[in-house]
């Protein structure tokens, strides 16, 4: 398997931007930035209450945010397009609301250290029920595996508690989507995590992360009828 770089998947530069910004900050500086942005991570630095928030913790939060953004955009688009019916439609509506709540919480916690919101092109999978469910299963399974792999690396206990709470919610979503797609909700007695590089490789293979934005504004003399 070819090892992929972040540049290949992060065509929008959002994840790299976050990593670069994190690397420029000391832990104290980082917490200062978070406090200045009104985010809620200040309490995490209190001595004796929890382990410190590290640069690695922030990077993991941004990684989780990128997956939550992907899921949120996917379900929201599917609901707006109204091509799903019955139980699939209900599931998209409910799960979408939860993924949006996850995104909102991560963005509030990260403040200005959060990555930019990427653009997506789901290429029709949100407009066809069978393809929607297949993709939803893949997304939810990926999210579960990603949280599982990163949780042991989180230094701050409060952040770990959040991650574990979301992990079980994503596992419920995975079981729900698997049931709707017609495959076993709980197929294995033991689940393994999946490393970030592999998760990004899989996300990249979907081609759902769009390239540069459309150029819709230009410094140019009009040739309209006047």
């Amino acid at each position, binding site marked *: 398997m070819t090892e992929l770089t972040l540049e290949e998947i992060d065509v929008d530069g959002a994840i790299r931007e976050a990593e670069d910004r994190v690397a420029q900050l000391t832990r104290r500086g980082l917490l200062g930035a978070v406090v200045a942005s009104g985010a809620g991570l200040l309490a995490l630095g209190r001595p004796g209450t929890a382990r410190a928030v590290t640069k690695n913790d922030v990077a993991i939060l941004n990684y989780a945010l990128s997956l939550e953004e992907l899921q949120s955009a996917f379900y929201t688009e599917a609901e707006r397009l109204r091509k799903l019916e019955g139980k699939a439609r209900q599931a998209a509506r409910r799960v979408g609301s939860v993924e949006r709540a996850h995104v909102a919480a991560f963005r509030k916690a990260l403040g200005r250290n959060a990555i930019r919101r990427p653009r997506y092109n789901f290429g029709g999978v949100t407009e066809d029920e069978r393809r929607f469910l297949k993709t939803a299963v893949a997304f939810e399974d990926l999210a579960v595996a990603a949280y599982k792999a990163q949780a042991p690396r989180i230094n701050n206990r409060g952040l770990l508690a959040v991650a574990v709470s979301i992990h079980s919610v994503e596992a419920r979503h995975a079981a729900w989507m698997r049931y709707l797609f017609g495959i076993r909700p709980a197929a294995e007695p033991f689940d393994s995590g999946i490393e970030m590089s592999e998760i990004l490789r899989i996300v990249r293979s979907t081609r759902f992360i769009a390239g540069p934005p459309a150029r819709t504004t230009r410094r140019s003399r009009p040739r*309209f009828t006047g």
Partner: protein
Amino acid sequence: MTPGRRRLAVAAVLLVAAAAAAAFLLLRGDEPVAVEKPVAAQKPVVRPPQAALPSAPKPAFAIPQPKLLQDRDSVSRWSPVLRRTAAFRSPDVRTPVVGKLETQTPEETTNLVLVLDSTTTPSGEVWAKVRLPVLPNNTVGWIPRRALGGYTVVATHLVIDRARLRATLYSRGRSVFNAPVGIGESQWPTPGGKFYIRNKLTQYANPFYGPLAFGTSARSAVLTDWPAGGFVGIHGTNQPDLIPGRISHGCVRMRNGDILRLAPIMPIGTPLTVL
């Protein structure tokens, strides 16, 4: 003893035995039967080791209550054209071509279309129904979904009222902008129908168009030989005294202050209705 007397005697003996048994049980009922009171002092109490189970850490931040989507009815979506394609009357390449789409506009911005609907064919291919920037105006057609990029949602809608000579911008159904406009003279009328905003041009040195111009998907039906195809714009002016009025070649003109007020609140892809 006759058989009848024998049966009577047996019955009497059984009755006496049953009465004796009942009396015995009633007497025993005064005392607890086989129930032993626990004696705390006599049994060791098992307690969890306090030091080994500290309280669980509190989550660093809370997840807000999920909110269901509220804007499904008040948004539109547009998409960039990624690949040149023909648009067909139906989602089938064997149906007539109703227009062609390039990837760029004459102003060299990304071409885009307003997406109205979509469907999946029996072969599994997704097609999109789009509004086209072609003559005749108000043409819609079907193109393969793979020719388009991702969807962008807008919650705005611009309405030009040719009778009242006014422009109104709605956001989520609520009026947020209103201004007088100039429209086409009778020989070059501003076309009516449904269109969309497809680009924005700025920082050009031509006072005739004012400080800023929006391009639309509407085209003049009479000035077909106009450079770049005779597309209708919405722009400022160097003759504000003519507004409101029927004074243009088909474009919608606004006073410069109004077009500058409109620019930041009307995103590209906004649907346009000319009444």
